[in-house]
């Protein structure tokens, strides 16, 4: 397609006007006009003509409308291989689209016209033409701030271009078809699995797995319930079978019969046991009778033996007693003689003792009298000293002038005397002599006749006369001190009731003398009675009493004490010898008496035993007969007892075992009771099991289990299918990406091929690298080093952006579908050198491609050359 003219009516600044650019050539056409001419208006209007729907009211369309409003019309004349056509769109007020041929014939209107234009442009912005526009100031490879949708759209456009232009690339990479397949497979995989191959949460695979897990848990639970049910059914069968067995008529009858038989056997055994007991009682009775007979016989024999023995013993005892009596009588006589000897010796001893006693009493009396006299004298002395001492104490007590009192008296008297001397040396002395009854008074005190010392100024009342004042003046005395000393001296004397000092001194001397006497008397008393006067008196009283006792005895006879002593000792020895003989004979006599008593007792006992044995023995004449009768009775009882024991043994031998019978009965009863209890327990157990079974049955657990088993299997199969599908999708995506990656190595070959000569115009030995995903240049390699696009200068980015589009356009042209390249003030950052190179590049492309350049830089773009189309603006009618 080639543009030949563009016409705008009522568009933006061309309100009410029609602006036309005509004469656009095949190669480079430059519309260089000053600013505000409306280049961008042309650019935008042309863009709207090709890419916006005539019915559109978007902001982009409204931006074309002038302030005055009205319909916006844009038309362009294009040249295609099949001829020239005029495209026209009217926006907003009059919405219309039309395509006319060279003859002016409308070949498409409105929507059809839109479709015609769209096909011409190759799906609008997504088509290749969308790539060839370079707006004013846009230097980036993708418009800044493009949304993801816009970027995806432009990416699609680039791929379209490459895919449509280079068939070989499409062949290698699969083109957009490959992309869509990968995208579809990736999306399908993403619905199932994560990047690591795990099931996606909330995805169908995961859901199936979770469902399977839930079913598995539920199935296990139901399976347990089913097993419980089966177990309960089995148990109930056993219980029912056992219960039937127990409740069967024959079984119960057998139990009853067994019990009855056991009871009968026990009763029989018990009856036999009673019989044995009776026989045993009889045997025991017979045995007792035998024992009695035996005892009687034995008793008779024993009685006879006892009688003979008692008689012998009595005889022996009687003889012994007789001998003892004889010996006792003899001993008594000998002892009585010794007793008389002893009495005589005692009398002699007493006489000797009395004589000796008397002599001793006399000696004691003498001694006591002497001692009494001594003590009486001592007590008399002590009494005299004691009275003298008491008299001295009495005197001493009246003598009060102690050395200290005397010293005070003498001291106060000296002080008084000194004061008095001092007073008599300076004062006034008056002497009063009364004649009448009137008296002189001083300070209310009547003064007696005599001398009075006036020590200081004093007023005297002279009754009936008046007052007289005597003032010793300078010689005034301190009479108060004299008075005070006088008082003290008098007080000291008064204290000991002494009239004067001399008397006091005499009294003090007497007091010392009496004190000395008291000390002497005290020491004498202490010497005479060291233990005290009372002790001495008590000792005297004691001696007096002892004397009084002795004075009551026989009159003193003076005897020879040595003779008396000898006589006494002789008598004492004789008495002791007699006493020893007596004691010995008395013991002999007592021994004989004891023997006599003993034999007497033995004889008595033997007599008693004999009497008893004789009584038991009875009449000796009948004894033999009695003994023979007892022997016969014994023999008879012996036979009877043996028969009774034999009977017991015989009955015992025939007796059933009572314990065994009792055990059998107990066992039979236990069996019957156990059966009853078991029946009861089984009925209860059966009821419990039935309740469990009914509960499970009502739940329909087996059906639910089987249903859940099916659900589980279904879910597991589904999960397995999803896993298989995910594995397949994963493998598919992997294979597709691997092949596309390999193909992308050759993907940009054609672009690079077209780009290389254009780049060479600007940079020596430079090459662009492309990002395989965005399909845009990502770096510029110069001098062996690659620089990222964003690191390049604005001018270089701008130049690469244009050159890349020129390369894409070249590919498009080589496919036989040349499209115009329209630049709107695109080269704004390039310096003079670079802009010239770019002009060259534009011309190089323009060899088989229309290049339309809008610019306000008339001077700068003068070097671009090319054709300058005609621009007309006319006022609409």
């Amino acid at each position, binding site marked *: 397609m080639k543009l030949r003219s563009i016409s705008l009516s009522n568009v933006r600044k061309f309100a009410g006007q029609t602006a036309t650019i005509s004469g656009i050539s095949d190669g480079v056409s430059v519309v260089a006009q000053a600013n505000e001419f409306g280049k961008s208006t042309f650019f935008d209007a042309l863009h709207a003509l090709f890419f916006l729907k005539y019915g559109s009211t978007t902001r982009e369309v409204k931006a074309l409308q002038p302030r005055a409003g009205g319909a916006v019309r844009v038309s362009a004349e294009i040249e295609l291989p099949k001829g020239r056509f005029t495209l026209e769109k009217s926006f907003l007020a009059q919405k219309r689209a039309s395509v006319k041929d060279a003859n002016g014939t409308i070949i498409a209107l409105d929507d059809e016209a839109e479709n015609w234009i769209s096909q011409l442009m190759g799906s609008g912005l997504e088509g290749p033409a969308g790539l060839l526009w370079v707006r004013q100031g846009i230097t980036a490879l993708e418009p800044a701030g493009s949304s993801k949708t816009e970027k995806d759209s432009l990416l699609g456009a680039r791929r379209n271009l490459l895919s449509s232009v280079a068939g070989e690339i499409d062949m290698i990479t699969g083109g957009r078809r490959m992309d869509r397949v990968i995208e579809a497979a990736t999306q399908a995989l993403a619905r199932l699995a994560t990047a690591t191959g795990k099931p996606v949460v909330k995805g169908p695979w995961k859901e199936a797995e979770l469902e399977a897990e839930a079913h598995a848990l539920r199935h296990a639970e139901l399976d347990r319930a089913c097993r419980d049910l089966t177990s309960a059914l089995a148990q109930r069968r056993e219980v029912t079978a056992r219960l039937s067995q127990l409740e069967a008529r024959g079984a119960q009858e057998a139990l009853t019969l067994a019990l009855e038989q056991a009871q009968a056997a026990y009763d029989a055994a018990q009856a036999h046991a009673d019989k044995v007991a009776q026989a045993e009682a009889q045997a025991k009775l017979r045995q007792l009778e035998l024992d009695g007979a035996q005892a009687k016989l034995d008793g008779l024999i024993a009685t006879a033996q006892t009688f003979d023995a008692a008689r012998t013993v009595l005889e022996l005892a009687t003889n012994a007693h007789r001998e003892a009596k004889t010996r006792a009588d003899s001993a008594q006589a000998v002892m009585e003689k010794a007793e008389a000897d002893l009495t005589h010796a005692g009398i002699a001893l007493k006489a000797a003792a009395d004589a000796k006693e008397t002599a001793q009493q006399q000696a004691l009396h003498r001694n006591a009298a002497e001692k009494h006299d001594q003590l009486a004298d001592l007590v008399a002395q002590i009494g005299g000293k004691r009275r003298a001492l008491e008299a001295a104490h009495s005197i001493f007590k009246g003598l009060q002038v102690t050395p200290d009192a005397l010293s005070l008296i003498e001291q106060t008297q000296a002080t008084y005397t000194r004061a008095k001397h001092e007073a008599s040396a300076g004062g006034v002395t008056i002497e009063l002599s009364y004649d009448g009854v009137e008296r002189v008074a001083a300070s209310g005190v009547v003064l007696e006749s005599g001398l009075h010392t006036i020590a200081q100024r004093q007023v005297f009342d002279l009754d009936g006369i008046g007052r007289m004042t005597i003032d010793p003046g300078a010689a005034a005395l301190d009479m108060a001190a004299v008075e005070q000393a006088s008082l003290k001296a008098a007080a000291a004397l008064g204290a000991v009731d002494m009239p004067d000092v001399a008397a006091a001194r005499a009294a003090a001397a007497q007091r010392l003398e009496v004190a000395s006497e008291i000390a002497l008397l005290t020491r004498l008393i202490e010497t005479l009675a060291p233990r005290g006067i009372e002790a001495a008196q008590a000792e005297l009283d004691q001696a007096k009493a002892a004397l009084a006792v002795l004075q009551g005895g026989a009159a003193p006879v003076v005897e020879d004490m040595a003779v008396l002593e000898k006589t006494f000792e002789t008598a004492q020895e004789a008495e002791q010898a007699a006493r020893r003989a007596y004691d010995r004979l008395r013991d002999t006599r007592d021994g004989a008496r004891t023997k006599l008593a003993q034999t007497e007792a033995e004889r008595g006992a033997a007599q008693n035993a004999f009497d008893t044995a004789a009584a038991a023995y009875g009449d000796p004449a009948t004894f033999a007969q009695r003994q023979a009768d007892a022997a016969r009775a014994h023999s008879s009882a012996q036979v009877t007892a043996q028969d009774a024991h034999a009977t017991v043994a015989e009955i015992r031998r025939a007796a059933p075992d009572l314990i065994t019978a009792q055990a059998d009965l107990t066992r039979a009863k236990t069996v019957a009771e156990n059966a009853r209890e078991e029946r009861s327990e089984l009925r209860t157990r059966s009821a419990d099991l039935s309740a469990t079974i009914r509960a499970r049955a009502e739940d329909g657990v087996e059906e639910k289990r089987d249903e859940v088993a099916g659900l589980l299997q279904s879910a597991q199969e589904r999960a397995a299918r999803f896993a298989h599908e995910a594995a397949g999708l994963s493998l598919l995506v992997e294979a*597709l990406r691997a092949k596309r990656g390999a193909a992308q190595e050759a993907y940009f070959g054609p672009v690079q091929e077209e780009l290389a000569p254009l780049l060479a115009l600007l940079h020596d030995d430079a090459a662009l690298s492309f990002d395989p995903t965005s399909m845009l240049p990502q770096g510029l390699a110069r001098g062996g080093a690659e620089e990222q696009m964003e690191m390049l200068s604005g001018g270089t980015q701008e130049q690469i952006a244009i050159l890349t589009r020129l390369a894409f356009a070249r590919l498009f042209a080589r496919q036989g579908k040349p499209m115009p390249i329209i630049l709107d003030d695109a080269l704004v950052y390039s310096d003079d050198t670079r802009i010239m190179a770019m002009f060259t590049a534009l011309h190089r492309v323009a060899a088989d491609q229309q290049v339309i350049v809008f610019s306000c830089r008339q001077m700068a773009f003068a070097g671009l050359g090319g054709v300058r189309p005609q621009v007309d603006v006319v006022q609409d009618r």
Partner: protein
Amino acid sequence: MFRFIHTSDLHLGKPFGRHTEDVRGRLRQARHGVLDRLAAAARDQGAGTILLAGDTFDQETPAPTITRQALNAMRQAEDITWVLMPGNHDSLVASELWQTITRDKPDNLVLALDAEPIVLGAAHILPAPCTTRNPGRDLTVDMARPTPEGALRIGLGHGGIHDFASLGSVAAEGPSGTIAPDRAALAGLDYLGLGDWHGQIRVSANTWYSGTPEPDSFKHAHAGTALAVSLAGVGSVPDVKPVRTGAIHWQRLALDLMPQDDVIELVAGRLPPLDLRRDTLFHMDVQGRLGVQQVQQLRLGLERAAPDFLNLTYDLGAVRLEHNTNDLDAIDPSGGALRQAAEALALRAQDVDLSAADRQIAASALSQLFFFVAEQDA
């Protein structure tokens, strides 16, 4: 003439957990109505007795609703005498079930819970109820017990015969049983009605497996029938006639396809008629060698037909992908990256050095590639 319906294996209460909720509902509904349909079939055939030869219930202890509704259905068919015998699924071990039925059964229901003969007019039914799930012995031995002179002797058993192999093609899948195949002759039976095998089998002229009246799986190519049996007299050959009772069809189709087959046409010709499809569970097992496009066509064809059916499933796991030039050209005729990826996957799918699972994954990937490309090109 004594006429009766011989049937078995109703499996009332079977849950069908593997199916979707909708399908489960339909299957249960159909199973619920089978007693009514049996009663109707009996009336149509002039039979007053229906012999149920075991497995009337699917579980030993079914939910009370299952038991009660079954008894209600029998009670409502008051003109019919039902003879109900335990099978292996509802053996005598299911004491709760049989206690409940014994307690709640209608008068027209006769229980065959032991080997005692059941007298129905001139006929004596000699049952061999399953004592346990696997009795391990031939319970039909007791059928030899005597009956009055001139009485028709009809045996009723459940389980496999021990000589299934003699029955031909079904033998391979038959249960390993204990019942003597010539029990009818040994016990002097005029007819031996057996249950357990869900397909209908004629063991001999007077020994039959009735098959289930309402199929429950794809295992048997059986539409769901019972047997209408007429006995003219003692020693006569019974007249046995299948009568239709099934409501849901279970149809399984195995196809062995080749690359040269027109899969669309072939499959279309093998699908059931349209009027049957809504009551049909259809499953197709495909094996053989197919191209990717053929598999895709087959898959799409089956998916398009699926809504016609109560349920349609298929298994293409046994199909070996054969990758011809046409298939790869369909993906990418230019030999570009798509083509190369497809060829790599095709090689992988046929690589014998890989495990079968890996080969299947590669085949799945290739099939998906074809699907996505077709989707893009559509």
